[in-house]
Every structure is written in C-alpha cells, then in structure tokens.
C-alpha cells in the first residue's frame, strides 16, 4: 500500500490548484446562474492538455494512468462541478475508443479528443431506456454496406457541444441487450440533429440534450468493437465512468465541507463561534470522515483499473457511496450555514442541488446496489 503521490502528480496538481482557484472556482456561481456553457473553462482544460491525460502518447495524449485522471477530476469538480462533469463525460467517449476502438478509429478520433479540439459524448439513455439499459428503441438497419439509424436519445451530457459521439443502437430488436451495437458518429452527419435542451434542478450550464436520428447513414467502419457487442461497450464504459461520476460527487462534497468548516469557525452565536458547539463539531466530523472513506474507495477502483484488474465492484461502491455522501454532506453544509445556507448568496444550496444528480446518473443508487449485490453474491 502506498498513497504517496509521484513527483509528476504533485507538480500537475500544484499547477491545477492554481488554475482551479483563479479560473474555475470564481466563475462557478456565475456559470450556474446564467446557465451558459463554460466554454472558457473547456478551452483552459484543452490548453493545459488535461483532456489527454489517459490517452496514449502515440495518439497525442500524455499516456498517464486513471489514478492521475481521478485526482485531476476531483479537483476540477471541487472548483466547479459543471466543468468536472464536462471533463468526465469526455472520458465516456475516449475510454471506450481506447478500449475497443480499431487502430484506424483511434488514429482518427483520439488526437482531437486529446488536444481538446473535439469534445466527446456517450449516448445510451432514451425515454424508455434508463435503468433498463437493454430496452433501447433506437434502431440501426443494415443497408448496402451502411447502417441507417433512427430514434431519439435524451439527457445526453455534452450533447450538441460535443463533436464525437458514441451511440448505442439496436441492430437486432428481438435479441434485446444482445442485439445492441455501438457506433461512432460525428456531429454534422446527415440525419443526426439535436432536439430539446433539458432544464435541470442544478448544473444548469451542463448541456443535457436530445439527439435525434432520422435515417442517419453511417458506414460499417463506424461500428465500435463489433456488431451486437454494444451492450458490452456500454457496460464497460459505465464501469469506468462510475469512477468519474463518483469523483465528481466527492469534489462537491469536499467543497461543501470546506465552506461549512470555514463558516462554522467564523459565525458567532451566543458569543462564540458555532464550531465550538458539539452539535456542529459532530456534523463536521461525520462529513470529513465520510469524504475520506468515499475518496479511498474511488482511488482504489482507479488503481485496479490501471493494473488491468477487476475494478467494477469497487467502482460501483465508490459511485454509490460518494454520491450519497455528497448528498448528505451538502445537506449538512446548508444546515451549518443555517438561514444563510438556504439563500442563493452562498454557494452551499447550489452544492446541494448539484449533488442530487450524482445519485441518479451513470446508474441510480438502486442499480448500483443491484450490481454490487450481484457481484458479492457470486463470490463464495
């Protein structure tokens, strides 16, 4: 066991801390209020080469490990959860490309993803296919060496701003999950358009968009992995994505905790700082403890992923636990702030609204418990 950061990691994080403090954190409130896509932040992430962390060097990335990616995503999310999720959603495109892509697909799509010139997105969710991922209604019909896509995807993170999409469609309806295929699509492909932008409780600047496929023709070379292997692509992507979502939740929890701690030391009631009251102390102690616990579940999941070992169970546990901790910590942070906490002048109410999403996306808490139960019951 070794939790020491490498000198490269320390150097990167030191630089990133400065960027987060000076660029991302000060704009987080504004972004959330206006709901405008934080293109400046995305540009900054690109300039700093952050999109290319895990992408191999031969494709223009830095070829670093997922553990480092995790540390970086944690900090970005802590400063600005919206930016953290955009960063994370991008991984849902680059990860499956790295894992399942052909040499040609990698050559074409990874360099622009690494440089940040292109953003990525992953599209599975449909009105009738949320937790029931196998129930995809979008179809891909084979026709003269092409596939023709028809259907609608909803809530797609980075939709419309992304240039490269991985889309899960059914090539064989009656086979259910086994009939799903993953396709690589570029924005601008004929028959591929964008619909509604969804208005959310929080994270208003995060694009969650409807994708519409209307006789959209793609060549067979755009199939990722293999025909009828789309469910494997989706599940593999989500497993890794859960580390990203968990770490996003953790970042929010850390931000809320730090705000609550500072406020508790500063706020005077009954002639002394409220941090001297045991009730507040216990709240803070619980918050800090759970944050640490969530952190190491996620770090360890990333560590196994880097070693090519089974990480799915830990990733699910980490995502489940971190998102629930984020909800709890942000709610308590509002409590520590009291009346002010409920006001929009302070960021803690925003954290609370943001945290809720994390218990839902990338598999709800209920789905995570199901996955974990399945895996632990297989063992003897």
């Amino acid at each position, binding site marked *: 066991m070794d939790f020491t950061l490498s000198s*490269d990691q320390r150097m990167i994080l030191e630089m990133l801390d400065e960027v987060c403090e000076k660029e991302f954190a000060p704009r987080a409130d504004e972004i959330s209020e206006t709901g405008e896509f934080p293109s400046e932040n995305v540009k900054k992430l690109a*300039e*700093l*080469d*952050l999109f290319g962390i895990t992408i191999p060097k031969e494709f223009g990335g*830095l070829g670093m490990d997922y553990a480092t990616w995790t540390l970086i995503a944690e900090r970005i999310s802590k400063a600005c959860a919206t930016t953290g999720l955009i960063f994370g959603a991008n991984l849902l495109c680059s990860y499956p490309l790295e894992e399942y892509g052909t040499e040609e697909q990698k050559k074409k799509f990874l360099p622009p993803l690494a440089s940040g010139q292109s953003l990525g997105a992953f599209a599975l969710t449909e009105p009738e296919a949320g937790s029931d991922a196998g129930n995809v209604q979008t179809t891909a019909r084979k026709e003269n060496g092409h596939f023709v896509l028809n259907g609608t995807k909803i809530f797609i993170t980075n939709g419309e701003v992304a240039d490269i999409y991985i889309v899960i469609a059914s090539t064989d309806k009656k086979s259910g999950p086994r009939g799903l295929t993953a396709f690589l699509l570029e924005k601008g492909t004929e028959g591929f358009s964008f619909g509604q932008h969804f208005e959310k409780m929080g994270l208003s600047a995060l694009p969650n968009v409807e994708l519409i496929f209307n006789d959209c023709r793609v060549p067979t070379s755009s199939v990722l992995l293999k025909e009828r292997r789309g469910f494997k692509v989706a599940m593999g992507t989500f497993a890794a994505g859960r580390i990203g979502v968990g770490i996003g939740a953790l970042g929010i929890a850390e931000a809320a905790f730090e705000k609550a701690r500072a406020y508790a030391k500063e706020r005077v009631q009954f002639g002394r700082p409220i941090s001297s009251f045991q009730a507040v102390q216990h709240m803070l102690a619980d918050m800090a403890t759970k944050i640490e616990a969530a952190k190491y579940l996620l770090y360890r999941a990333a560590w196994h992923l880097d070693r090519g070992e089974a990480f799915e169970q830990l990733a699910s546990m980490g995502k489940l636990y971190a998102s629930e901790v984020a909800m709890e910590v942000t709610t308590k942070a509002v409590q520590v702030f009291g009346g002010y906490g409920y006001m929009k002048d302070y960021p803690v109410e925003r954290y609370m609204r943001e945290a809720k999403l994390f218990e839902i996306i990338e598999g709800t808490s209920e789905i995570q418990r199901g996955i974990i139960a399945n895996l632990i019951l297989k063992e003897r």
Partner: protein
Amino acid sequence: MNSQPERPTMDIVVCIKQVPDTEELPHIRVNRETNTLVRESAKGIINPFDENAIEEALRLRDAKGGRVTVISMGPPQAEEALRKALAMGADQAVLISDSSLAGSDTLATSYTLAMGIKKIGSFSLLILGKQAIDGDTAQVGPGLAEWLRIPQITYARKIEINGNKIRAERALEDAFEKVESTLPCLVTVTKEINIPRYPSLKGLLSAKKKEVLVWSADDLTLDRKRIGLEGSPTWVIKIFTPEAPPKGEVLAGEMPEVADRLIEKLREREVF
C-alpha cells in the same frame, strides 16, 4: 517598407526575478511588537510582470520562430521560477547564482545580468516586466539597456515586430505613446500586454527534463569591482516598519445606526 533584410527568427531573452508571493496572506506581515517582517514560508513566485514578459516572448517566438532564453540572478531556489518559465514554453534557462553577488543593488544586478546576456549570445529582443513587486524600483531594465548600449522602451502595453523594427505602445500616467525603434532593443512590459498562460501538462513534464544552466561569477567575464556589494553604490543602512496607522475605530451595532454614524464621521472629516 525598409531595405534591411528580415531577420529570419527572433531570439529573445527574458529576465525574470523570483519574488515572495504577497498575494498569499497572511504569509508576510509585520510584527508590530518586534518591528520585524514575519515571513511564514512565503512561497516564491515569478514576479507577476515577468510572467507577462515570458508570455510576450513566447507569442513572438511562436509567430516568428527563434528561441526564448530566460535568465535570472538569485539564490539557488530561484531555479523553481526558471523551471516554471521552461514549463510555459521557454527553450532555455540560465540562473546566475553566486555568494559573491549578495548585496547587489540595481546597478550591480543590471551589470551582472548584462554580462550573463552577453554570454548567452546575440538576441533581437530583451523583455522584462516593468518592475519587480518586492523592490518596485523599475531600475534594472534601463540599467541593462545602458550596459548593453541598446534602446529601451519601458511600460509597453503592446508590441509589434516588423523586420528589424519594433513598434510599441507605452502606457504613461494619463496617455499612451506610440514609439518605434530598431532591434536589438530592450522592452519592459505592463500587465495589460497579455494574459500569461499556465504551463500545459506537456510543458510541465518536458520542463522536468530540461536543464537549467547555473553560472557562477567565475563563469562570466566580469569586473569583480562591479558586482555584489562592492559594485553597489547604494547601501541599505536601516530597515524599519512604517509607523502603525493610528488605531482605527470599529463601528458596531445595528446596521442603520452604523450607517448613520459612518455618515456623521465622514461629514466631520469634511468628505461631504
């Protein structure tokens, strides 16, 4: 426009200084009882105006080709500042560090840097920040230009290179001045000139592999009488803290009452 041949590339030298980070409070504060500076691990940073100087050099190089060399005079730990400059994209870094340079004032510093720059070789442009935020003298730039016998353009908020001509906008108190000179030339820049980049990850990782050249006084051809304390006409004979401002008054109470009292105070002092 001009008959002289275009310089093929721009070799640029940037002089930087490592300074304590005054942004990081309360790292530096004055202890009123002992009248001394309390430096709680004040982190060293690149002088902010020098970051603008580096940025400008990198932009010019990227547009015109050439090399950017960053040079600093200071204690061994100033290497950190140079490393950051390398990570931002500078091609080469030189640190002049020697115990015999201790006590250098701006004249001795500009002389030593000038000798270091001569050792680096020829250059088209020499860029500095308009001043360092610790000393605030703004004297090293013009001093360097004098030792090197080149024109100087101070307080530049915009520069443009065309062939061997430089045009700049100088920010004066209430106006700006458009000027023109020939290269090689020394320019000191203000914060308005650009927004310095952060080092990219690739920059950070490759800077680790680059070497920072460290030159001692012996590595330079220089007159020993012109360096360090010996070469410094000015001597600091006393350092003290300014008289503490008279203890202010805290206005406390209900807000409307505090507002009334503040207005009353300001009226008494003839603000209205």
